[in-house]
């Protein structure tokens, strides 16, 4: 009986805390982007949050939080893409794709080997941001070549200096407060327990299956 109550409480806490963080971070990201910008890039609070949710709380947390955050991003600021017919159109589901992939990448980045320790979570953020930027440029390059608009693409060196490096710096700095939010005011309670993976099995991964 006690186990049932614990699981129910964990579920409620998880949903409420995630909902609050998703709304707050997504809204802040698109309402005040200038306050978190440097060298023409904006710190991606939501992206970092999704990666760290996956890293600390398991695969399904990363996947589900990434999916929901992606939908919110597609509503708030979807990308506009040049279609093959030459018309610029607002797209849907690119945000979901990106953040879902970021969530599962963060959840799979040496999490068990490193026992989800805090310092290595910064490496997870850096690695996932690197993959996002490089993958993004490759997709843009491929799509622009198909649409015949290669003139508007960054040169590799420009992309490295003015896009990748500032974004890595900003996301790494952003990760620090978000790590503390997730570990100490987060959706999963780790208080007084040492077996993190066991807690995640009980409160993290398994919890979603019961919803």
């Amino acid at each position: 009986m006690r186990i049932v109550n614990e699981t129910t409480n964990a579920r409620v806490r998880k949903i409420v805390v995630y909902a609050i963080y998703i709304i707050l971070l997504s809204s802040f990201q698109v309402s005040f982007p200038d306050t978190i910008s440097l060298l023409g890039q904006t710190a991606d609070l939501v992206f970092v949050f999704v990666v760290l949710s996956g890293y600390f709380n398991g695969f399904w947390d990363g996947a589900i939080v990434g999916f929901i955050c992606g939908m919110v991003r597609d509503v708030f600021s979807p990308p506009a893409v040049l279609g093959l017919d030459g018309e610029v159109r607002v797209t849907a589901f690119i945000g979901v794709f990106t953040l879902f992939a970021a969530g599962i990448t963060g959840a799979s980045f040496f999490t068990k080997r490193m026992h989800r320790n805090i310092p290595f979570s910064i490496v997870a953020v850096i690695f996932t941001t690197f993959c996002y930027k490089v993958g993004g440029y490759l997709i843009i390059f491929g799509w622009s070549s198909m649409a015949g608009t290669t003139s508007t693409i960054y040169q590799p060196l420009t992309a490295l200096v003015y896009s990748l490096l500032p974004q890595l710096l900003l996301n790494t700095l952003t990760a620090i407060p978000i790590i503390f939010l997730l570990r100490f005011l987060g959706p999963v309670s780790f208080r007084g327990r040492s077996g993190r993976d066991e807690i995640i099995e009980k409160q993290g991964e398994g919890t979603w299956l019961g919803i």
Partner: protein
Amino acid sequence: MKKLLKSKWFIALVVLLLLAACAVLSLLPGSPVKKALSPVQLVTSPAQSLVKRAGDTITDFWSAITDGIAIREENRALKEQIADLRYQLTQSEEAALRYEELKDALHIKDTFSNYVIYGASILSRESDEWFSTIRLNAGAVDGIELAEGNSYPVLDVEMNLVGRVIESSDTESRVLPLLHEGFAVAGKVNEVNGVTFMVVGDAELKRQGLCLAKDIDPDVHLEPGMEIVTSGDGGLFPEGIPIGVIETVDYSNPLEVTATIRPYSQIGKLEDVFIMIPYVEETEETAETAETAVG
């Protein structure tokens, strides 16, 4: 097979493939895929407005504290200015009456008289380098209805070009900003018979807050500081909307003369914008149709 279907990696791969397919499908004209996000919009939009309002209130409160003394000084100066402006207003009202009389007499056509102008507030801005459209709080219910392939110019409070509306829902519209790589407008130097060229967004210039002028006639002399306005070619944007000023001109390749333009509008600082919608005049044909229908 059963093991494969239960594998989290297999599930994730299938979801990613489905999402990629949905993203490509959403690029098709009139794609219904985007409607799947409507319930999310219904829930998240009010929440985001609330967070934005709270943030603005905190910023305003902080400004009120830090700028208190400066505001008092400014208030005193503004009161003096108001008195002065009241006097000028009385003079201007008379001048305006005279202008209207002359306008009718000389058939002067206002530049934007064929457009209905709607005001809207910016709800959300670009969230990063690639997720870069702007959301406005005016949609079809406010008169911003967009047919496929159509678009409306968006201006700031000083009537400078900000971008164009590329999608609208019932309550919101999305704007493609001037600096976006997909943006293009015919521009010209702001003078009589000014030379025309294309003004486009460029990925590399975007981070410096600039856009690119291309397709420039090599025989034409352009120099930094010249004002660029819309030329009216193409019919989407009316002639004469200020875009910005030329910052640099590159004549190194005579076959491809380019210039960089610093736009007047600073999207990061904007709160309110105006959408210009062409005024549809009732033609004789539609009037006849309406009469027949009534008859």
